């Protein structure tokens, strides 16, 4: 992956500024149609998912009260892991995106939702919705590119510390929810440059601390206590469920922007970006995962990462429906729709993590300050 404008074969060189604006209009039309059509069917869908998730969570937790018995441990742990994945992916992530705000149900609203995750919803919304979705794949602006601990793009300068990145990535995957919490706080940067004295940061840190305390208390003390003689078994089960959830969400999210074929962009390229250009960046900066309907639900429909990035606020159940149309647009405009099975995309993303832990081969380093053509200039 290289900042798109530096590539020898620029994948958008064939598009004129007018093409890009027309593409934007066609994408707007798809969005408009879904908005006009959204209604009872969608509301019933999210309520059903929420109700299923809550029932699954309660029954799994009840089964785990008897986790001393191995079958109960296995069934309860599996159920809880699935419940936690559903809660984070198809429900939490999407509700916090405001995908269901249109229902005007105060119980299912982005401003009121809190999720089963270490990071407080408020902080996650800021780093994810406001920064990642706005500056998708812009090197130096979108910290989701490598989470500030990894080098995932040839254009990021190499440093010996990156030799360890396959290991950091694995540890981050295991404790992903805490990694996300630290990332939302911008903890690394704040500690490095003394920003930790900032009162806003301190308030956020306290909020995150409170959230983590509640989460840990629930999973590692209260439920084990309720399990009586199964104390340690339940504790281990909850740890395992959290671990499975973390590994799963980390894998899905890696597949969204890291696999081969996904483009990155330079900071200068988004100055004065039009709506059409913004759409184009989302199209080229995301990758889908192919699979069954169940797999899509378990990824929170982030397997339709391209559609999600084009329309982050449309109900997640609609991504699957509009995907063929979106893909047809890619074909018509001669753009690459990056998709693949989950194992293939996970392998592709990990391969990149390994490859970029070493310095670039052949290609010279390109510095960030080098003037690069903008998206429009590239097309004209």
């Amino acid at each position: 992956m290289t900042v798109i404008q530096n590539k020898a074969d620029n994948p958008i060189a064939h598009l004129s500024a007018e093409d890009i604006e027309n593409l934007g209009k066609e994408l707007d039309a798809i969005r408009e149609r879904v908005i006009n059509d959204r209604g009872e069917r969608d509301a019933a869908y999210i309520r059903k998912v929420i109700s299923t998730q809550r029932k699954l969570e309660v029954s799994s937790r009840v089964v785990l009260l008897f986790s001393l018995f191995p079958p109960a441990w296995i069934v309860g742990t599996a159920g809880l892991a699935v419940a936690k994945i559903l809660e984070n992916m198809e429900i939490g992530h999407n509700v916090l995106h405001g995908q269901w705000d249109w229902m005007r149900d105060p119980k299912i609203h982005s401003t009121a939702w809190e999720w089963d995750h270490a990071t407080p919803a408020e902080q996650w919304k800021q780093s994810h919705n406001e920064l990642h979705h706005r500056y998708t794949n812009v090197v130096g602006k979108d910290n989701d590119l490598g989470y500030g601990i990894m080098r995932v793009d040839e254009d990021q300068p190499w440093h010996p510390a990156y030799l360890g990145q396959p290991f950091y990535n694995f540890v981050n995957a295991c404790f992903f929810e805490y990694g996300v919490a630290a990332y939302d706080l911008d903890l690394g940067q704040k500690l490095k440059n003394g920003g930790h004295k900032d009162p806003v940061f301190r308030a956020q840190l306290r909020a995150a601390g409170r959230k983590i305390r509640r989460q840990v208390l629930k999973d590692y003390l209260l439920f084990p206590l309720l399990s009586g003689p199964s104390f340690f078994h339940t504790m281990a089960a909850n740890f395992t469920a959290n671990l499975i959830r973390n590994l799963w969400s980390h894998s899905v999210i890696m597949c969204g922007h890291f696999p081969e074929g996904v483009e990155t962009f330079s900071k200068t390229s988004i100055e004065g970006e039009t709506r059409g250009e913004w759409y184009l960046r989302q199209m080229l900066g995301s990758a889908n995962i192919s699979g069954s309907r169940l797999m899509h639900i378990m990824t929170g429909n982030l397997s339709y990462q391209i559609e999600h990035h084009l329309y982050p606020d449309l109900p997640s159940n609609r991504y699957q429906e509009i995907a063929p149309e979106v893909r047809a647009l890619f074909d018509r405009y001669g753009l690459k729709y990056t998709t693949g099975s989950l194992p293939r995309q996970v392998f592709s993303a990990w391969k990149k993590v390994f490859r970029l832990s070493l310095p670039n081969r052949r290609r010279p380093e390109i510095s960030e300050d080098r003037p690069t053509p903008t998206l429009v200039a590239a097309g004209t």
Partner: protein
Amino acid sequence: MTATVPPPGTKGSLRRRLWRLAETVTTPVLPGDYLDLVAPLRAGADLRGRIVAVRPETPDAATVLIQPGRSWRGHLPGQYVRLGVDVDGVRQWRAYSVTSAPGRRSDPISVTVKAIPDGVVSNHLVRRVRPGTIVQLDQARGDFVLPESVPSRVLFLTAGSGITPVAGMLRGGALAGSDVVLIHSAPTPADVVFGAELRDLAARGVIRLVERHTEIDGLLDVAELDALVPDHLERETWACGPLGLLDAVEQHWAARGHADRLHTERFRPTIITAGDGGTVTFTRSSVTVQATGATPLLDAGENAGVLMPSGCRMGICFGCVLPLRQGAVRDLRNGQLTTALPGDGVRVQTCVSAAAGPCELEI
């Protein structure tokens, strides 16, 4: 949803402590969020009701029977209740008079709804809603009620669905010993909501009923009251109906110096008419500005020094969402209009919404 809500029946610190413990176990949601799955009408839950039956009254009106949740505190005849109904997936709040007589708190209540042309909620309730549906409720409110010592001579002046609060009073039984006159207007005899019941009351001499069929006899003129009910100014009078009628009635009673005997109920009179731009009030900051139809509310607030929450400023992050207390706004991306009245619970993205008439934002 992490906010601590008072536990059901706050008495007993042991119970309170257990509830707290339950909250720490169900975090990040509340114990109630789980209980709602199985017992949405339980005591301590947000007030809701279950629709028990829908009975047609006239070709375009129906009575909806609702079993209120355990937190329902009852109503006085003449009061209204706000219903939150999900229509096409979107929660819409409307106020309707309670038409059932006050009974035990566990009894179902009824509202009678007339479908108005293009009425989103009224048409849904009259024609589409099915028994078993859960609706959101608010406690009964309103001061369009009989006083504790019921007057001996009463006049009710109603038109269309304005009969509904009066029907509640007639059914309540408090008027048993009073001399009651009801003048009711409707387009045709078939359009009279509760027509058979009212005619029966009249036949039994419980009330004197004057039906006015406006398609045949034209609208009622207040000047006719002298002939229809000569002593009308000496009666305690309750009037409910369209704005034109209420305005005329209020002028008439005021001109004759008896405004104190007149009680009126105005049904959802605030009609939000959309314009282009308007006065934007930031209620908590007590700031009011004029904004054009092209200025995002976010910019309008920031320019006026209001501390507005903001994010991507392009409509994707939902970091700028604020409650629209009342008024109309237009989505700058597609021109879509959103209107709100107090209690509707409408929230808007300020970065992509502009004023479409006067509006109030809660910040």
